[in-house]
């Protein structure tokens, strides 16, 4: 909150405007942003996430749980993506404003730098799982080996940056969702129809709160980093809308389809179901595209975060290094865990607890504190960047809000109190505003240190 007007524009030396304001020439249509978001959603992990819900709830409850979780994600991500649309910078640069220079490093390690590498590994492992289901006897399709070559392919797509990612999304996303709907219809048709689906019950029921937190958790990192893509949108509100529609409409649809497949067949592997009805090539293509369009964004988001933290290196180098780490992690995971889903379920739950509080502080700072306390009406003026801009090193209310909100969210998930993810979001906002507003009005210094932005944006 201590930034001053920039003295001059910074130079983009890290690629994809990782540390600088996006130039006008790089602005894309709202449809482009929508397709990139949809490309992230078009992924096998979405089916596994939905299948987890299929082990906890019946079809009607799955619909309610996913809809509530996705509305939370949709509204939450709407405000975050729109910040990117106004500020035209990455998530890291936004957190630099509200958490301080050092605080933003902590926030980004929690949100994207580390989780997105883990997601990359998870998605690569999923790819191996799908390959081995489709081609059970092929050595090159074993979980471990397929993870290796699949990871390399996904790294390649990310190596070329946003332009290639969005082009791949344009060609893959429409047919991916059509095929998902087609396979859902086939399963319904061959497994007793809608009557069978809505009368199927899981072995044991889970709590609604746990289901909602899990739903939010599997896309929490994508939600809080929605600005990375949203900054490209020509209309700031358009980016937010693109995010909200893809989550509320299409993610709900995906999770419901996956949960339904689980209830009817006991197997969420949609590519496997396609292979079972003779669509071997289609299944392979489906699995490949699904993972590529998501994992390239995971890798790209992680690169944006790491280059912002370290302040050295270029996109190509970072994507190769991060891709190699993620691929090896997937290989090791495959050799140790095989096809076990336990780690995935725990991972999704943890992300749902600790990542949303970071976004809650971002929203509270941009949409409430700067607008109503600092009185900056024009959203484009709320965050300023460029050489010579001064930031605090640590914004203590923001750090405290993030950590306490995450901790309380985790604790309430342990004792099954209300909806843990919402608990974390609300507590974080209340703590941040409850500390920052009175301290600011009382003239009390609540930020430590100063960091001056260099010509490179670091």
């Amino acid at each position, binding site marked *: 909150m201590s930034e001053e007007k920039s003295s001059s524009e910074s130079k983009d030396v890290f690629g994809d405007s990782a540390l600088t304001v996006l130039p006008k020439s790089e602005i894309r249509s709202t*449809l*482009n942003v929508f397709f990139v978001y949809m490309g992230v959603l078009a992924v096998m992990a979405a089916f596994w996430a939905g299948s987890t819900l299929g082990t906890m709830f019946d079809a009607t409850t799955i619909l309610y749980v996913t809809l509530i979780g996705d509305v939370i994600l949709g509204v939450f991500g709407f405000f975050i993506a729109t910040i990117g649309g106004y500020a035209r910078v990455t998530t890291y640069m936004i957190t630099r404003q509200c958490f301080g220079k050092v605080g933003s490093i902590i926030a980004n390690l929690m949100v994207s730098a580390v989780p997105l590498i883990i997601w990359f590994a998870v998605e690569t492992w999923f790819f191996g799982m799908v390959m081995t289901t489709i081609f059970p006897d092929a050595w090159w399709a074993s979980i471990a080996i397929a993870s290796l070559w699949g990871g390399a392919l996904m790294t390649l797509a990310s190596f070329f940056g946003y332009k290639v990612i969005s082009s791949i999304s*344009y*060609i893959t996303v429409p047919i991916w969702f*059509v095929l998902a709907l*087609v396979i859902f219809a086939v399963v319904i048709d061959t497994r007793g129809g809608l009557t069978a689906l809505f009368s199927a019950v899981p072995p044991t029921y889970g709590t609604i709160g746990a289901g909602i937190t899990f739903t939010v958790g599997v896309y929490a990192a994508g939600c809080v980093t929605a600005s990375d893509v949203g900054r490209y949108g020509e209309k700031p509100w358009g980016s937010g809308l693109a995010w909200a529609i893809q989550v509320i409409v299409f993610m709900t649809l995906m999770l419901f389809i996956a949960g339904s497949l689980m209830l009817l067949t006991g197997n969420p592997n949609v590519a496997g179901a396609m292979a079972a009805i003779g*669509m071997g090539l*289609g299944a392979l293509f489906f699995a490949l595209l699904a993972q590529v369009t998501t994992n390239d964004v995971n890798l790209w988001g992680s690169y944006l975060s790491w280059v912002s933290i370290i302040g050295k290196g270029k996109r190509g180098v970072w994507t190769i290094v991060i891709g190699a780490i993620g691929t090896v992690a997937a290989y090791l995971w495959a050799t140790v865990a095989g096809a076990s889903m336990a780690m995935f379920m725990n991972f999704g739950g943890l992300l749902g607890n600790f990542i949303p509080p970071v976004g809650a502080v971002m929203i509270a700072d941009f949409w409430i504190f700067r607008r109503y306390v600092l009185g900056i009406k024009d959203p484009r003026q709320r965050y300023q960047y460029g050489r010579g801009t001064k930031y605090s090193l640590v914004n203590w209310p923001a750090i405290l809000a993030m950590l306490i909100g995450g901790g309380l969210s985790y604790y309430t998930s342990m004792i099954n109190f209300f909806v843990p993810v919402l608990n974390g979001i609300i507590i974080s906002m209340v703590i941040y505003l409850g500390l920052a507003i009175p301290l600011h009005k009382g003239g009390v210094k609540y930020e430590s240190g100063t960091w001056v932005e260099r010509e490179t944006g670091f």
Partner: protein
Amino acid sequence: MSDIAKLKKNINLVFLIFLVLNLVAIAISATGSIRTLYLFAIIGGMAAIVSVFSLIRLSLAASTTMVGRAAMQGLWVNCSMALGYFLTAPSSYFASSAIVWGVGFIAGGVVFVVSIYMLIMVRRTTGVPLSI
């Protein structure tokens, strides 16, 4: 006639051809299994709707950029949907006659190849990036 006017005319013709091809594929699939009819209705229907929508957008486009953007986005989606005819063909579930799948292959193949060609042409003529 300027390059842009010529391009706009060609793109309009391309979307019209796409529309006709997909509608023919749907009509022919009615002679096969009901499952194939549903499948072609989804794939071809989506492509046909996008083609019509693209034609309307092109007619309203007032600048080179708007022409390029409408053409690019319509071509990308058509290109994507065309893949559906090939990916679903080997499935025993959608068993249908060779004629039905032959028409599907022709429609999908033409749309895919022409879309790729036109994407490059639109990029060259309008300067609108492929990743618009």
